[in-house]
């Protein structure tokens, strides 16, 4: 690769050149103004007692800096707490479309952001790849089919989530920051499971039917998208990771599932807290969420019912015999449903077990 002047050393060294520049005559130092120094913004307290978690966003955003208004008033990239430029000097109106707090907010976003950074991992080096032993060909193929499914669905969730970032106005920075960690997590899931599928004599399997993929792309509202990915899809994947006692064949497999589960718990926590906030903001939102719930369940059912390779792979991977595998798949589906229902409860949607979309219920009960 050519020299791009960007090959960073272990830590980029900043420089202090003493060379005296020749200042072009057009460039003269403007007279001192310092109007910016009189901006009437809040003076925050000096932070202290950082503790093991350091200088967190919650500690930094003291006083009014931590208060997000119900409607963000600035149509550009003014940071919350800064003094806005006069209207005539604000430049272009930004293309953001989400200015209402209820559409993105979750009280736990700032904490989940810091947690996401603390719990980061690198698949290249944090997985014991050398612990993987050769497996029977059909067992490896079954695992690879499952890994293919995870990698693909996470790429889909990741792509669509990134697309939403540019819709969210600048004032809700906790949310944008948290979602950036989720983007980063999902990217890691894409490559980690791909690496696993290519590391033990197998390869990728068959792609998914894609009903949920289409549904995430087609979401008209950010909260709708979050329901599909952070509640429905994440609940199912987290419960799958919870079956690692049956699925994992090596230390590497266990680590993969454990790290992924740790990430997904944050995604679920954001999703549940956001939907709860959204529901509390306006009674009419409950009907909207119900529509998304029904739509999501129907599309998830379509995927489950049509994904024969995944079904058969799970049966082979979960049991020593096909009958054992089928029983274990039924247990897995039940665990996935329970995880989903508990997450809905955390989002203040109660007793939904009695109202499941019939096709979804059938896919769970007769996998």
């Amino acid at each position, binding site marked *: 690769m050519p020299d791009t002047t960007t090959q960073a050393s272990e830590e980029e060294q900043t420089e202090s050149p003493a060379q005296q520049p020749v200042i072009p005559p057009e460039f003269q130092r*403007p007279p001192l103004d310092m*109007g910016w120094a009189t901006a009437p*913004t809040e003076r925050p*307290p000096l932070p202290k007692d950082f503790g093991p978690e350091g200088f967190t966003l919650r500690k930094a955003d003291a006083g009014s800096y931590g208060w997000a208004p119900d409607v963000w008033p600035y149509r550009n990239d003014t940071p919350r*707490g800064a*003094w806005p430029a006069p209207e005539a000097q604000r430049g272009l109106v930004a293309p953001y479309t989400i200015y209402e707090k209820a559409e993105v907010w979750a009280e736990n976003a700032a904490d989940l952001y810091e947690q996401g950074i603390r719990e980061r991992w690198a698949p290249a080096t944090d997985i014991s*790849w050398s612990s993987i032993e050769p497996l029977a060909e*059909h067992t490896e193929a079954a695992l690879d089919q499952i890994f293919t499914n995870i990698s693909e669905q996470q790429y889909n969730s990741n792509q669509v989530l990134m697309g*939403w970032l540019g819709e969210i106005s600048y004032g809700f920075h906790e949310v944008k920051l948290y979602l950036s960690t989720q983007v980063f997590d999902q990217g890691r899931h894409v490559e980690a499971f791909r690496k696993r599928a290519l590391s033990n004599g197998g390869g990728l399997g068959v792609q998914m*039917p894609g009903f949920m993929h289409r549904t995430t792309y087609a979401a008209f509202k950010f909260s709708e998208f979050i329901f599909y990915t952070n509640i429905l899809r994440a609940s199912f994947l987290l419960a799958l990771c919870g079956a690692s006692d049956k699925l994992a064949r090596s230390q590497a497999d266990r680590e993969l599932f454990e790290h992924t589960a740790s990430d997904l718990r944050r995604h679920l926590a954001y999703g549940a807290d956001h939907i709860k906030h959204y529901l509390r903001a306006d009674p009419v939102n409950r009907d909207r969420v119900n529509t998304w719930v029904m739509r999501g369940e129907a599309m998830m059912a379509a995927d489950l019912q049509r994904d024969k390779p995944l079904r058969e792979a799970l049966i082979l991977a979960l049991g020593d015999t096909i009958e054992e595998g089928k029983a274990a798949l039924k247990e897995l589906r039940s665990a996935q449903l329970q995880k989903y229902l508990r997450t809905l409860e955390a989002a203040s949607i109660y007793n939904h077990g009695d109202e499941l979309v019939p096709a979804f219920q059938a896919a769970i009960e007769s996998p």
Partner: protein
Amino acid sequence: MAKSETLEMLRKEPGAEDMDFSWLDDPAAERGMRVAPGKRGLTLEDISVGTYGDPPEMTRNQSGRMRGSAPRGDAQNLGAHWMIKSESWSESAMMLYEEALQRQWSSATDIPWEEMPELDDDLELAMSQLCTFLTQVEFIAGDLPAKFAPNISADHFETGLFLATQIMDEARHLDVFRKRALANGIGLLQAGPGAVGLLTSQSFVDMTASLHLVGEGFVQSLFRMGEMIAHSEVDKRIFRLAAQDESRHVAFGIMHMKHLLEQEPERRDEIHTYLDRMEGQVGSTPNQAGLTGGGDTTEALTILLGGGKSETQMDEGFKKLMAIRKRQFNEYVHRLDVVGLSDRRERMDPMIQAFLEPRRN
């Protein structure tokens, strides 16, 4: 293909009546992959082998099928993905992705906040103003690549993964500069016109030209001169770590542009127009010269670089600021040389040309 005796055995098992094992019997994806980790662990480059390592120049994959996996005829068509590799590909994406994962840092714990000294009031005000500016513009560099991410084909997924790391980095930059402004008693100050104009990019190459070659490159040069700007170890460390991140972003953009120009040299003039715009040669829209050198930011930087606001200090600070500007423009020209746009030097505004070192032979 699974051994026929294994398949036979599976088919005879109780409960197998409703299973056909066709995915196992006749897999359409390449099998037999046994990739081992190298010195840097198991990297994307390690697994980019066989059919899995051959990103197609042109793809009709609109279903989100990951490169190398087996297609199914009834997969949903998402109709969102770019078909041509050169539209988004960067040869460095895999390497930079892995590097990004290894070099993540935490603004909460990797900055020695507890060692923050009490600074002279003017210096602290100036640092807070600079951080207000950086808080304002840094996540525009996350929002912009995010805008194009849904269009990256799963056949070229490495680009999507790299963009995810850039978004994470920019989040951390917004966060660390915000924290810095709030860490020493001043807080955020005056917001400016910001960098929303970058979001006008209408294509991936418009973005890499505007954001990576110009915007991020200029910010990288600024951060690399952080020793001159910073008056504490806290600030020096922030600039060092942020510069390291920016280096990856710039490298991605350079290699994308280089790839595109090699594959589609006829787009050369089109790319020049994006750079014309960023250099301020199209209309009067705010340009790069204003992005890191505009009014309030210029004054804050001048105070920081001079060590105060006396006339002597301001003169000294302004000289150093011009040194930074000179470096920004010359490093920009170097990037242009690398991507194959050496002829651009002659097209530049005389105000920029005045900063350039003579061409090296």
